[in-house]
């Protein structure tokens, strides 16, 4: 099954989802399509006008274009997702994924979709990490 991961470029979640036999949906595959097929300078920092318009489906015109642009890029992924894993409070959620408002809207949209959803916190010690991995395994094992 296709599993959307949040943060969408997380190494840990991408690896775990793939290791436990499912297909992770991550930003990287979209970036690859933009790099290989579109003539824009530096995706995802550059997007096409159509991307920004597509973002209007998820957020109003008064919402900053950065948020709409991010949602437009990610929408291609979460529209085809069968399940989602959200890892809250990832300390590295800055840089290319660094818009907290986008993350909030994204999480809201994902919860609204009614698909199987696992919400976790980023592990801060060994115990939490062990629990997190076991939860991910249990969740992915239950998907049919």
């Amino acid at each position, binding site marked *: 099954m296709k599993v959307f991961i949040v*943060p969408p*470029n*997380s*190494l*840990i979640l*991408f*690896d*775990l989802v*793939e*290791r436990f036999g499912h297909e992770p949906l*991550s*930003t*990287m*595959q*979209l*970036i*690859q*399509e*933009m*790099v*290989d097929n579109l003539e824009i*300078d*530096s*995706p995802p*920092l550059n997007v096409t006008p159509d991307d920004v318009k597509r973002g209007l489906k998820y957020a109003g015109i008064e919402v900053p274009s950065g948020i709409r642009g991010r949602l437009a890029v990610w929408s291609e992924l979460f529209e085809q997702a069968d399940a989602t894993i959200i890892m809250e409070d990832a*300390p*590295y959620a*800055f*840089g*290319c*994924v660094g818009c907290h408002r986008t993350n909030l809207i994204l999480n809201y949209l994902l919860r609204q979709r009614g698909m199987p959803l696992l919400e976790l916190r980023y*592990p801060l*010690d*060994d115990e*939490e*990490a*062990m*629990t*997190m*991995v*076991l*939860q991910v*395994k*249990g969740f992915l094992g239950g998907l049919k």
Partner: protein
Amino acid sequence: MIERETRLLVISPTSDITPDQLTRFLHAMDLPITIKETCYGAMVEGDPDTIHRVVDGARALDHNKIFSKRRGYPIGDTRRCRAHHGSRPGFTQLEAEWHDLGRIELGLDCCDRGESVPEPTVDHRVPINRLREIIKEVTE
């Protein structure tokens, strides 16, 4: 149809494997792929089926200590490659996650041992009736 797939292979800080050993192992697989040794492990690029074989092989090299994720840009792309003074905006995240891979390895070891998810901890919040009593004691 995606014709290429580029992967990062990241070695956990708890592993004894070096990027050099990993790269030599990948070369020894003798598959039609491009390999680049990096500070965190290696990057590999080729057709998706071959890359999946490579990733499985690399994971088997050091059990639960080698991790992988895709990369959008090809190896050596001038917009990202440091050799061409490209920017590398994802590296801070990669470094942050690399620090925690040892913990994830512990979790994967638990899965190998067949452990189940521990019961959630008991909620120790004060019951509402006890809270009423406390308020009464304090205010009287």
